[in-house]
């Protein structure tokens, strides 16, 4: 296996180098320091993957890194999962474009974390093993619950992957002059390598390193911007409003009506608590205490990061906007205005050049690229474990499968998901990536979260209620997304949206909760009676951790 791995690394590096040369022909201002730092990161992380591959011997190692990650490390890794390309490039791009609206968006992304800590983290750790479906199906019937939970996970993962792939394509395209499609394929291939060979251990360390680099880089950028204005926010803001108008300092069109506002809030709060790649991270720590610490550290890192993103967005307004160096002349000739190269999501990347020159541009580009790789790896691992642990091992094989076979299925699933991600990334090139993440959150909030939450706290939940209510939530979320303004109008080209709101969560989460409640309380089957009786023992374990999965011995 090691030989295959070495071969894959080499071919990948060759592919990368070949791409870089091609880029040099297409673009004259090729940035050597960026390429060197890209290659160092890729080399380093593949080294970690090689190290992790030797330590990944069982399904438990593959899914949870053996359960021995500390709370601090996991907090960093969770923050890493959350500080995705969509957060870094998308939110700084949104601040650059609309000012204050970007802050509203990032606050929404943050406030789900305390709720996760108070309600979800400890019971999740105490009840589960590899996936959140372990918890949802703890006292309910395995086959239907796992099938549904896995569908919700896979849908969330694929949507989230699209956002990441689009970001990666644009970023590498901008930096190397590579074709968008080739860039997306490159990310897909590297991600498949990390996950199939290194499993959760490699994915976690790639995530930790990237989180550290991203926080350092973003801190430097924010400090550089502020230093320019003698650390006077008022001066930064007044310069920005001179360029973009006073309206960037107030709430704009992001949440124009109360329904959209509440719906966005519901999607972001409950969605965070239903993201499979985030939930999976809680199984990598040894117990509930470490799970708790993970969220504390993660919330701190993420909050700090969003404050930086806000400064970075404003920094881009004053240093990138209308700066001829970053102007997309071809686009300006057609559309007018002051479009920047690569679109608004590249605002942070251009700012890195404005404050730190070619070298720092190289660093931030490499970090942004690392971010995408790390996040897609975590996502793919979560998607693959839903396929292998929930669908294959529990539903198809009814639990009669050995750990190695299950791990093999995960790896096959990883490759398939990687290919799907590449195809979807190419299809969704023109969408605003921050909104695509919003859609993923709607599904996580409507399908995954209600089942998980009620299975932990509501005694009367039955399989029938969870399956019917959860399916209704999932179907409503998907249907309303399709009928909403983004897919129905922007993608399918219809004149007017059938469902007028961009964020369907308020409606779909309500449907899910009401559906689960109604079909549970009206369930008078013998099975339902047993499920209610089993609640007490489950609740004790969820509260105390007695009987919970521990860390592996080695």
């Amino acid at each position: 296996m090691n030989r295959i791995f070495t071969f894959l690394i080499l071919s990948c590096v060759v592919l990368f180098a070949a791409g870089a040369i091609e880029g040099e022909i297409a673009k004259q201002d090729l940035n050597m320091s960026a390429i060197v730092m890209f290659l160092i990161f890729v080399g380093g992380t593949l080294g970690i993957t090689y190290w992790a591959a030797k330590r990944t011997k069982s399904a438990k190692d593959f899914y949870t890194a053996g359960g021995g990650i500390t709370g601090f490390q996991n907090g960093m890794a969770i923050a890493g999962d959350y500080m995705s390309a969509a957060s870094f490039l998308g939110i700084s791009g949104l601040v650059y474009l609309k000012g204050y609206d970007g802050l509203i968006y990032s606050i929404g992304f943050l406030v789900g974390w305390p709720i996760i800590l108070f309600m979800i983290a400890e019971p999740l750790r105490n009840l589960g093993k590899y996936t959140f479906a372990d918890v949802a199906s703890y006292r309910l019937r395995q086959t239907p619950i796992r099938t549904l939970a896995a569908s919700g996970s896979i849908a969330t993962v694929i949507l989230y992957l699209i956002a990441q792939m689009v970001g990666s394509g644009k970023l590498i395209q901008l930096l190397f002059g590579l074709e968008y499609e080739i860039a997306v394929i490159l990310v897909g291939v590297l991600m498949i390598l990390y996950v199939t060979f290194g499993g959760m251990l490699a994915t976690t360390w790639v995530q930790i390193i990237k989180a550290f680099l991203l926080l350092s880089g973003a801190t430097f950028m924010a400090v550089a911007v502020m230093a320019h204005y003698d650390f006077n926010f008022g001066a930064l803001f007044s310069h920005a409003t001179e360029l973009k108008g006073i309206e960037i300092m107030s709430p704009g069109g992001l949440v124009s009506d109360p329904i959209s506002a509440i719906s966005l809030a519901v999607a972001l709060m409950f969605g965070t608590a239903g993201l499979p790649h985030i939930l999976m991270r809680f199984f990598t720590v040894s117990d509930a205490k470490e799970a708790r610490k993970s969220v504390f550290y993660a919330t701190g890192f993420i909050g700090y990061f969003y404050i930086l993103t806000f400064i970075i967005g404003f920094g881009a307004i004053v240093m990138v906007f209308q700066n001829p160096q970053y102007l997309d002349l071809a686009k300006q000739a057609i559309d007018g205005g002051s479009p920047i190269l690569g679109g608004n999501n590249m605002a942070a990347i251009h700012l890195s050049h404005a404050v730190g020159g070619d070298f720092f541009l190289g660093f931030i580009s490499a970090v942004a690229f690392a971010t995408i790789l790390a996040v897609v790896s975590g996502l793919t691992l979560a998607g693959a474990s839903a396929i292998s642990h929930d669908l294959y091992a529990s539903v198809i094989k009814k639990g009669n499968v050995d750990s190695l076979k299950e791990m093999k299925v995960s790896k096959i699933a990883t490759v398939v998901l990687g290919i799907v991600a590449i195809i979807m990334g190419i299809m969704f090139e023109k969408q605003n990536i921050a909104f695509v993440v919003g859609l993923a959150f709607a599904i996580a909030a409507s399908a995954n979260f209600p089942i998980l939450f009620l299975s932990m706290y509501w005694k009367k939940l039955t399989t029938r209620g969870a399956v019917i209510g959860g399916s209704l939530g999932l179907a409503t979320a998907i249907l309303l997304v399709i009928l909403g303004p983004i897919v129905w109008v922007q993608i399918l080209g219809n004149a007017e949206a059938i469902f007028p709101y961009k964020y369907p969560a308020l409606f779909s989460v309500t449907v899910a909760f009401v559906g689960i409640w109604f079909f549970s309380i009206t369930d008078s089957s013998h099975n339902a009676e047993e499920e209610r009786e089993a609640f007490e023992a489950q609740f004790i374990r969820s509260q105390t951790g007695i009987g919970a999965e521990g860390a592996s011995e080695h």
Partner: protein
Amino acid sequence: MNKELVEKIKNDPNYQELVSKRNGFAVKLSIAMLVVYFTFILTIAFNPSALGTPISADSVTTIGIPIGIAVIIFAFILTGIYTKRANSEFDDLNNKIKNSIKDN
């Protein structure tokens, strides 16, 4: 977990104290977070210009900016408060429960 053990833990006063204290605390903190956030987001929805008020007459900085940053810091502080109490008080109670079942 067998029936006997379930009954034993259920009747353990430490367990009852842990569950009521922790869940009560968790619910209070959750409500605090929800109230703060929904006040923020609904202010934007119903009265967006409220957050667009400048902090002083000659400033372009709006009160929405320090308020937004404060919401972020508030969320972090809440996680800190919960983690601190859970790591000491709740874990002590939990250890008592775990020790009591070891004795049998």
